[in-house]
């Protein structure tokens, strides 16, 4: 295996990444690791990102890790990480570069925000061979605002406003970033409550009620798109994380139907710990094993398709 660093221009900024190339030159498959949203560089905690891409390369799959714009060695500013606003341009540019270098089949391996980005770009990836979703959140919210999102659904307007008043800090208004955050939370709250009102009206009108209205509709549409085309999908969650609990609840709705209908192409793996935080090394190791084994399997199983 050799590793080759690269810079790649995307919309005026340079993304930094490294491609791990297997010794076997006949390999046709490349996997791109789409990192979680946040201010951590592509090797990630305890070198998890580095180890995963090297492990994939050792199994014969070329693997790319990279920093989002504004993160690690890339240039620019990251801005806000919102799950419904994935960094599609960054991800597609890396995938396109791999394709231009000769890897015709592509696997996407996304972690949290990266998983949601993988789902969002999947329809635009030629030769897509599979998508591994490592702890994908099933809600839409900005980074660090999952708790506020849950409250907006769960406790109603009065409770939400009481909680918000308790957490509000006048001093924070002097900080432009905090002001923007408050504004985002307010907008998100209004959107969620209007949605609830709409559902109540539909219910009165006799329409069916979605038992889990907070589940991201774009995410479900994207997952449907993949599974309808027979693209293998791997979900990996940790048994100690909130995202897994929410994934379980979300199965009461449309997600459950999709999973049931496509049980032959969707695999769900649950490992000990929190995959979202990767805050235990045994969790990291287990995820690495699961993803590497899945990548080898789908690479062998799925015939190379060209679109």
């Amino acid at each position: 295996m050799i590793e080759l660093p690269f810079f790649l221009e995307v919309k005026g900024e340079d993304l930094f990444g490294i491609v791990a190339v297997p010794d076997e030159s006949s390999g046709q498959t490349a996997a791109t690791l789409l990192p979680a949203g946040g201010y951590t560089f592509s090797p990630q905690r305890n070198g998890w990102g580095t180890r995963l891409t090297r492990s994939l390369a050792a199994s014969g799959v070329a693997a790319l890790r990279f920093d989002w714009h504004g993160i690690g060695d890339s240039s620019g500013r990251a801005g806000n990480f919102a799950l419904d606003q994935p960094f599609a341009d960054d991800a597609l540019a890396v995938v396109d570069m791999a394709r231009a270098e000769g890897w015709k089949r592509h696997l996407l391996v996304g972690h949290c925000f990266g998983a949601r980005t993988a789902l969002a770009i999947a329809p635009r990836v030629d030769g897509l061979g599979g998508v591994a979703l490592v702890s994908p959140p099933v809600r839409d919210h900005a980074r660090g605002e999952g708790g506020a999102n849950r409250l907006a659904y769960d406790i109603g307007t009065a409770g939400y406003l009481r909680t918000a008043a308790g957490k509000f800090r006048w001093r924070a208004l002097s900080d432009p970033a905090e002001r923007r955050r408050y504004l985002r939370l307010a907008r998100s709250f209004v959107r969620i409550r209007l949605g609830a009102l709409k559902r109540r009206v539909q219910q009165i009108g006799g329409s069916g009620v979605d038992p889990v209205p907070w589940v991201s509709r774009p995410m479900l549409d994207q997952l449907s798109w993949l599974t309808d085309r027979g693209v293998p999908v791997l979900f990996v969650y940790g048994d100690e994380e909130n995202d897994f609990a929410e994934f379980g609840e979300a199965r009461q709705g449309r997600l459950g139907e999709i999973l049931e209908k496509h049980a032959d192409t969707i695999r769900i793996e649950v490992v000990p710990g929190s995959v979202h935080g990767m805050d235990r090394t045994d969790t990291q190791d287990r995820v690495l094993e699961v993803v590497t084994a899945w990548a080898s399997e789908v690479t062998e199983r799925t015939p190379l398709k060209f679109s």
Partner: protein
Amino acid sequence: MRTTAVAIRPWRRDPTTGVTEEAGFDDSRFAVLHLPTRPHRAVVLCSPLHAEMQRNYRREVLLSRRLAAEGSAVERFHYRGTGNSAGGPDRLALETMIEDGIAAVRHLQGRVGEVPVAVLGTRVGGLVAAAVAAEVEAAGLALWQPLVKGSAYMREAERAAMARAITNTSGERPPPLREVLVTEGSADVLGERVYAALAASLEEAQLAKLIGEQPRPVLLAQAGGPDGLRGELARLADELATVGFAVTARPTGDAEVWWANPGGDLFREEDDKPLTVELLRVTADWVETL
């Protein structure tokens, strides 16, 4: 069959400063060089480790870009066994880190020739930077919140793990780190694997000894405590000044939680953080004086 050769671009040029950044491997050591058109100084950065490396990483990238824009050639590197570098993390030790730092200085000197050199180290990287600077005639030494004693690193790691355990639902306290390192050879500290070889190599390390006897310019930056350097750092500054080192002490306003996972300042870009702005400014100003 894959037919095209890999021909990807391992460099970038900043359109506003004209600085070129080159990424690559020097043997198994991953490094990024920031090269201005006519460098008149060379600066090598020695990172901290584990969670502290992640926390400081973008700050080091921004510092390198700023210094390069102001005429310094800069080399950042990952110690073997960490980040993008090759090598087993179980072999990482203070000695291998110092070897990597010296190799980085030689590598950068090979690119830019004989210009004044400065070495910057953060936290445990401060111990590395001190030892590296001692090997380079008249090199300046910049230290961001350095560890004065190597043994403090494992103590702080253990304290951070204990603090996390308090918030765990299980309420289980982790066993003493030293004990685990002896019996297992490594330990999981907040999702970072720490090996016995590193712990052993840090046990007796002292900044005052590693820095050598040859007086040189030293910048001591302390995160937090705007009223002056505190405790061990204040004593170190006095000690060095007494034996002829030109010490510049720069306490900064904001404190930093080092041995914790990045994410404290969740909504802030690194270049918006007051501590980062201040550290970059005081370091760039100090480098100008060399």
